[in-house]
């Protein structure tokens, strides 16, 4: 009799007693190669990326040096900063922007020019026989002493024919003397600075309409179903980040945006909610209130955009991507052309960039004729940041006179 199951039982017992073990074997050479290669690659990446910091730091330092030393000549600065209104040849724009060429103010020398640049003009002025509605921004915050000295010397020399030059130190003295004085009140006040001026138009009596207390309450206290305007847009409508600057925007433009918000044609949840709480009278009053505000710029470039590229888009556009110059519609230096083209100068960069993105993405589509939709779509993201930063670097222009608004109010335009 065989016992065929005996052997398997034995071997099963042996199996259960089996202790696994491993031979000491060398790590295969390819594995070592891979490990070494990974280590080399990791170290190289570490070294290369530590270079990124040095690159960016150097670039920032050189950028600061450039800004501090301002190697550009007065002419280059004039072309970048002044020629968008006064024209490259200083001829001005008839009935709109006073000429510099041969004007009494340019002839009066660089010190006068520098003082006008520092404070800006906000009042009627007579230049070379024609009266103008003076609306020049103050460049005190936008330009440093060296830049102002160079531009003033250039203007007095080229357009006034005086040979005098101004130094940055003298501008610093003038800046201290003229600080916190507000804009020049038209030619009448400048006549004290420049002797032998022809008769200047008188400053019109301040016809500031008293603000309706109900509107004032809306602005500063809000009501039970709407937050106050000032709590987001600032006391004078300066704006911050993507809350837009309202000060000095055309009355018709503000009113139209509020109506669009109320009807849901323009989308912003907070503004939709506020606008629904407003009646027509309140919209009209608020628009008039903010259109009158005159406040210096609170915006500064913050999006890391290329300012030179932004300047190019604003001044010339880029027809290779089908983008016209911003200033061709929004007025010289982005003053705005009431009522459809809002002022862009000194607008908050995050707001401009986010609105451009909104138009491109179809989230905002209340632009007349869909103009901005197409332009925004054509602008790449870096260009949107560049142009927003450039516009934020511009000084704010004094708000237009109330009588100009009255014309719009009386007109039959459907705003």
């Amino acid at each position: 009799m065989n016992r065929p199951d005996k052997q398997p039982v034995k071997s099963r017992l042996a199996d259960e007693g089996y202790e696994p073990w491993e031979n000491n074997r060398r790590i295969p050479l390819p594995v070592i190669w891979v490990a070494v290669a990974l280590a080399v690659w990791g170290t190289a990446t570490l070294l290369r990326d530590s270079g990124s910091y040095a690159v960016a730091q150097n670039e920032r330092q050189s950028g600061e040096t450039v800004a501090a030393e301002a190697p550009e000549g007065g002419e280059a600065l004039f072309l970048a900063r002044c020629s968008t209104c006064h024209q490259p040849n200083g001829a001005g724009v008839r009935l709109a922007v006073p000429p510099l060429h041969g004007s009494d103010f340019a002839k009066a020398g660089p010190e006068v020019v520098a003082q006008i640049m520092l404070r800006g003009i906000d009042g009627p002025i007579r230049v070379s026989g024609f009266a103008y509605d003076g609306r020049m921004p103050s460049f005190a915050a936008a330009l440093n002493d060296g830049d102002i000295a160079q531009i003033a010397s250039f203007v007095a020399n080229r357009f006034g024919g005086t040979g005098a030059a101004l130094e940055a130190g003298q501008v610093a003295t003038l800046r201290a003397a003229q600080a916190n004085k507000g804009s020049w009140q038209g030619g009448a006040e400048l006549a004290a600075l420049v002797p032998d001026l022809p008769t200047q138009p008188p400053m019109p009596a301040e016809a500031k309409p008293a603000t309706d207390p109900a509107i004032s309450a809306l602005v500063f206290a809000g009501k039970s179903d709407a937050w106050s305007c000032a709590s987001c847009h600032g006391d004078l409508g300066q704006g911050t980040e993507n809350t837009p600057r309202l000060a000095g925007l055309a009355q018709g433009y503000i009113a139209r945006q509020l109506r669009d918000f109320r009807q849901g044609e323009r989308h912003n949840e907070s503004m939709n909610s506020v606008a629904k709480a407003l009646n027509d009278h309140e919209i009209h009053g608020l628009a008039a209130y903010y259109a009158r505000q005159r406040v210096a710029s609170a915006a500064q470039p913050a999006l890391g955009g290329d300012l030179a590229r932004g300047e190019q888009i604003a001044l010339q556009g880029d027809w290779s991507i089908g983008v016209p110059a911003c200033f061709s519609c929004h007025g010289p230096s982005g003053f705005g052309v009431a009522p459809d083209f809002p002022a862009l100068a000194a607008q908050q960069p995050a707001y401009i960039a986010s609105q451009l993105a909104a138009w491109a993405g179809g989230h905002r589509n209340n632009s007349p004729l869909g103009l901005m939709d197409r332009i925004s779509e054509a602008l790449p993201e870096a260009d949107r940041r560049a142009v927003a930063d450039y516009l934020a670097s511009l000084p704010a222009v004094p708000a237009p006179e109330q009588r100009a608004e009255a014309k719009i109010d009386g007109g039959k335009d459907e705003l």
Partner: protein
Amino acid sequence: MNRYLPLVLISLGILAFATLFLVIAPGIQIAQRAVSEGLRPYTEQEARGRAQYVSLGCVYCHSQQPRSPDQAPDGERGWGRPAVAGDYVFDRPHQLGTMRTGPDLLNVGARLPSASWQLTHLYQPRAIFPWSIMPAYPYLFEKKAKAAEGDTVVVLPNGVGPADGGVIVARPEALDLAAYLLSLDRTYPVPANSLRDDGFARRGASS
């Protein structure tokens, strides 16, 4: 598992290496920088609000670290310039967060500076944004028949308020939290020597 010693040594080595490069070296780098000009410590009320922020777990949905433009369009969203290490000097523990279920909050005090708006939004986010998935925090507020002297009444649009004509007033907790949110404003210019995230800057290297 018959060679414990080399395994233990190697794991300790890796741990020491990571600690050196992820904790000690950055600590030394950051300790060399002074407090940014333009940054101030939290006031007592803001600090209480900060404790609320931590206890409500806001960090689980909101980050506090705007990115540089080559990583995300945070600047265009109005979230402010890229944060630098110095922006968090007074934050212990920091509330950087990793989730962006909600928007980044580092500069919310600059982009939504209205305390009144913040209170409405905390009471009922859907009063403003119908699509919002943020929880409401009604227990930070109380309902009263009539506002007493010194009460902060919450602005409530769209008929969100009490049906019987009462008012919703903010409890101190809500005011503290709003004060903290408004103090989140790091829009001052970046100090020249600050540590910052330059992404993968190659500018100038190639050109």
